[in-house]
């Protein structure tokens, strides 16, 4: 009960201080009057005498008022206000110190708040699905393919046989042309089955999802629009639902509009969101599968993304166990040949979307924590120095009756005010930082661009500022309590050498700073080496000067491959004629942009081991592609204008292909049949060998690959490649070619939509976006950490030099040379740096192991990196010590002694 009264009294006192004061005045006045009246009545004093007597008996009114105020229990709060005002005054008197300290804190708080914004957007904000923890993405995998699509048989099988799944859906992706008022746009399209939206638990913002009746082969032409397309192309008109629009040159009815920001689970990466959805319309028959949960040998053709909704209480691990058991059974039944190492697995949707980025983000977040710690240590150091300078002031105040506790509270309040300043400034920095992240985050990093300042992030900034105040303010506050007025005032703050005990804390701080900086810089160094290694990997192509853009030739306007080829030929001719263009060609999929699938082959003279095929990654190109992309010819020739539709089919293969299937035999002239070719069609003849291209990723294993000319492939085995990417090599900046090339396409066919206009260098950068992101941030933080530690070292040496000026003067008088003095003071900084280096290297050795998955071509304990970091830190430490140390060397005896 007592605490309750205490709180209410204190609260009332604070809230109604004015009234309390008035009441107190009244009450005491009343007392004095009553007492005076009594004295008049009982003792017969005159009124004036009575008043004086009453006051005498009462004692000092103001003193009693003060005591009452103290008893109200608000003095803590009032003191705090007083401390804060005092702190603001003190800080204002020292604008330089305040600016440096507040800026240092602001850097730390701003950087960590920005990073927290990113972490929150990527890892903490749930995906926009209903209960995302219950959604899994399904994959197949086998030798050479770590993560690939499902077949229709697998879809039906898992749906029926895996108890952990309540529902399984499949979809595929592609692109369609949307034409409205004669203006075409190429949109990324999702072909989804009727179960996908229920599995994700998406509520459409208008209309409905696809029905079972629509999700059939050659079913009714219906589409769902993204919110973005609906707003941009149809002015957010609700009546669009039910209307007919032009998709791929044909009428299709709009049945729904997706909610804002909806993305399919695999749309968070570089390819960007899907903008329009059509029914998948797949069935067993149209996919050459066996209806129901039966499997054909090999599982059939794999081309679908799979999603599953987990049964309540079931986990992804359980589902994986069940999938593994079922696959083992299917292998026994001979569905999947053992050698293919087939596997089916599920990945929780959150892991799928952000799993790759998670370790990177956590490492960077830890790094920013280090920066914050260093900033706090620096500010604590600054405050300690100030504390030293203020020892006499403190001692005087202790002597005048200020409690030690009160003094440390005052110091802490000063830090809190500093941290408040730093926090406010830090939020401003974070706002800039988040803006920069939003506008510069590589598209390949899922959800990073969603980072924004929200109440949680601001709350984090507040918490960080409070923590910073505590960390930075604790030592100086403790220092203030240890003030002993007698000694302080007696020696007048003048001693020949600086008290070693007083310096020790600061030295420890500086050593800790250096240690933290070393850890950060080692992390940054390892990332830099990794990224350099990634760039140094020979991808088999030359990316400089190359511009790429996607365009497609819809069947509605280009009904057969003759017309498609004619268009491509004319396009190549006109683009090649543009000034500055050195080579031009078209390709099915760009290296390092989209993973490539394979195709079963028969290579003349090669018999695969039992139950193994002869797969080859397939690439369809036009003449000019090899020159434009800069592939290296090993033997034979590139495609050229000889390789027309009616010419004998020609094929170019990569070196890996030769190693695997043509070992020791003459490769040029060898015949290869592509699976699906009619027996009466002539086989392809190898006319050239090119060097390996790291198509699926810079660090991935290269597989056997073949290139076929687009018109010939369209004839046999027969598939017109309508979605192609134009590749143009120029002599200047590739960006300068964008408008001329667009002009050519527009001149040929203004209806054709162009998309994904990128330079090849951009494609490569997106491919290594995550390690680059980590490198840039760690690099930035590493530099920041080094600078802050340099300031710390500079500070400690300056302090040592300043406090030992007298001693140095005496030493100089006794014959010490400036060089001796220089070394003496240099030593004080270098010793701390050395201790920090040793500790930092030890900690870094322990911590960098967590980065193993992010590294490329370097071990987490890379001696070169560690060596370089030790060197750099040592140079920085010596440099930072040198400036103040030189001052010591110039110590002027006369000045010291007379001063």
């Amino acid at each position, binding site marked *: *009960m007592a605490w309750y009264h205490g709180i209410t009294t204190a609260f009332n006192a604070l809230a109604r201080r004015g009234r309390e004061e008035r009441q107190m005045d009244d009450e005491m006045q009343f007392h004095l009057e009553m007492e005076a009246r009594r004295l008049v009545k009982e003792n017969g004093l005159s009124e004036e005498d009575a008043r004086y007597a009453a006051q005498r008996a009462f*004692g000092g009114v103001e003193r009693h008022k003060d005591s009452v105020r103290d*008893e109200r229990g608000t003095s803590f709060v009032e003191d705090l206000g007083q401390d804060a005002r005092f702190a603001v005054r003190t800080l204002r008197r020292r604008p330089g110190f305040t600016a440096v300290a507040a800026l240092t804190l602001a850097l730390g708080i701003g950087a960590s708040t920005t990073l927290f914004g990113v972490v929150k957007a990527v890892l903490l904000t749930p995906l926009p699905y209903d209960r995302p923890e219950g959604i899994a993405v399904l994959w197949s995998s086998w030798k050479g393919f770590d993560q690939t699509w499902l077949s229709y048989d697998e879809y039906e099988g898992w749906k029926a046989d895996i108890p952990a799944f309540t529902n399984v859906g499949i979809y595929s992706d592609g692109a369609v042309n949307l034409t409205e008022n004669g203006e075409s746009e190429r949109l990324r399209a999702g072909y989804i089955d009727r179960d996908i939206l229920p599995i994700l638990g998406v509520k459409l913002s208008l209309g409905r999802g696809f029905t079972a009746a629509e999700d059939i082969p050659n079913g009714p032409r219906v589409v769902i629009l993204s919110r973005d397309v609906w707003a941009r192309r149809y002015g957010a008109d609700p009546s669009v639902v039910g209307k007919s629009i032009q998709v791929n040159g044909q009428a299709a009815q709009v049945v729904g509009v997706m909610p804002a920001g909806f993305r399919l689970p695999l749309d968070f990466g570089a390819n960007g969101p899907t903008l329009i959805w059509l029914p998948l319309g797949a069935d067993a028959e149209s996919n050459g599968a066996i209806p129901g949960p039966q499997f054909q040998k090999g599982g059939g053709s794999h081309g679908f993304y799979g999603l599953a909704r987990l049964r309540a209480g079931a986990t992804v691990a359980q589902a994986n166990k069940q999938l593994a058991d079922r696959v083992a059974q299917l292998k026994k039944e001979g569905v999947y040949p053992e050698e293919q190492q087939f596997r089916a697995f599920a990945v929780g949707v959150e892991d799928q979307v952000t799993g790759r980025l998670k370790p990177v983000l956590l490492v960077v977040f830890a790094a920013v924590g280090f920066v914050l710690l260093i900033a706090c240590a620096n500010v604590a150091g600054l405050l300690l120095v100030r504390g030293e300078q203020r020892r006499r002031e403190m001692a005087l105040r202790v002597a005048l009756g200020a409690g030690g506790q009160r003094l440390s509270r005052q110091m802490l309040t000063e830090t809190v005010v500093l941290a408040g300043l730093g926090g406010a400034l830090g939020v401003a920095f974070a706002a800039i930082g988040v803006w920069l992240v939003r506008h510069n985050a590589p598209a390949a990093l899922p959800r990073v661009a969603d980072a924004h300042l929200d109440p949680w992030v601001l709350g984090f900034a507040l918490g960080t500022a409070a923590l910073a105040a505590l960390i930075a303010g604790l030592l100086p506050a403790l220092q203030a309590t240890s003030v002993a007025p007698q000694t302080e005032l007696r020696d007048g703050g003048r001693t020949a050498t600086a008290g070693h005990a007083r310096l020790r804390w600061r030295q420890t701080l500086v050593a800790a700073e250096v240690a933290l900086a070393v850890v950060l810089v080692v992390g940054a160094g390892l990332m830099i080496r990794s990224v350099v290694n990634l760039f140094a990997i020979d991808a088999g192509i030359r990316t400089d000067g190359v511009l790429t853009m996607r365009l497609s030739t819809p069947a509605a306007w280009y009904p057969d491959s003759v017309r498609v080829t004619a268009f491509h030929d004319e396009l190549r001719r006109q683009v090649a004629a543009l000034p500055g263009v050195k080579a031009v060609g078209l390709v099915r999929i760009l290296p390092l942009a989209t993973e490539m699938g394979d195709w079963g082959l028969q290579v003349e003279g090669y018999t695969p081991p039992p139950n193994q095929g002869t797969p080859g990654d397939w690439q369809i190109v036009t003449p000019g592609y090899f020159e434009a992309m800069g592939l290296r010819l090993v033997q034979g020739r590139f495609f050229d204008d000889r390789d027309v539709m009616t010419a004998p089919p020609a094929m170019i293969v990569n070196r890996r292909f030769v190693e695997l299937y043509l070992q020791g035999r003459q490769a040029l002239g060898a015949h290869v049949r592509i699976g699906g070719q009619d027996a009466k069609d002539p086989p392809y003849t190898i006319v050239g060998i090119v060097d390996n291209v790291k198509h699926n990723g810079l660090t991935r294993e290269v597989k056997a690959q073949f290139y076929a000319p687009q018109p010939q492939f369209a004839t046999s085995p027969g598939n017109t490649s309508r979605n192609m990417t134009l590749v143009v090599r120029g002599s200047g900046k590739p960006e300068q070619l964008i408008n001329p090339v667009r002009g050519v396409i527009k001149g040929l066919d203004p209806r054709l939509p162009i998309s994904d206009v990128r330079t090849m260098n951009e494609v490569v950068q997106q491919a290594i976006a995550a390690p680059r992101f980590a490198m840039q941030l760690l690099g930035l933080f590493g530099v920041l950490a080094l600078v802050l530690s340099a300031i710390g070292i500079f500070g400690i040496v300056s302090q040592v030099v300043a406090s030992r000026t007298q001693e140095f003067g005496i030493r100089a008088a006794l014959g010490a040379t400036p060089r001796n003095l220089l070394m003496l003071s240099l030593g004080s900084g270098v010793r701390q740096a050395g201790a920090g280096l040793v500790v930092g290297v030890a900690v870094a050795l322990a911590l960098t192991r967590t980065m193993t998955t992010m590294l490329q071509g370097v071990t987490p304990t890379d001696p070169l990196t560690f060596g370089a970091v030790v060197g750099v830190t040592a140079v920085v430490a010596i440099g930072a010590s040198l400036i103040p140390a030189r001052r010591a060397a110039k110590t002027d005896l006369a000045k010291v002694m007379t001063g």
Partner: protein
Amino acid sequence: MLTLKALTLQPMHGWGISIRLRQISGDVFDVNQGSLYPALQRMLRRGWIRAYYGDSENNRRARYYEITRDGRRQLEEQMAEWDHASRAVNRVLRFATQGA
């Protein structure tokens, strides 16, 4: 303790308490009447007494104090302690005078 004791009879205003204290103690405690007010404030904060406004004997509004249940309990405890302590002191003193 004396203040609490004074308040057990009836609610009083500050001046009234000071008079009553002087009467109870036979003017022994007539040191500095103003010290009463911080003490009252302390007891208010601890919840031993309550304050309210009422009309005084000469029709002036004054702040009255009355003892609370907590206050009575506190008083009893203090009295018990005081009894205990004073008995102990008495015994010691008696022993000391006998022994002398």
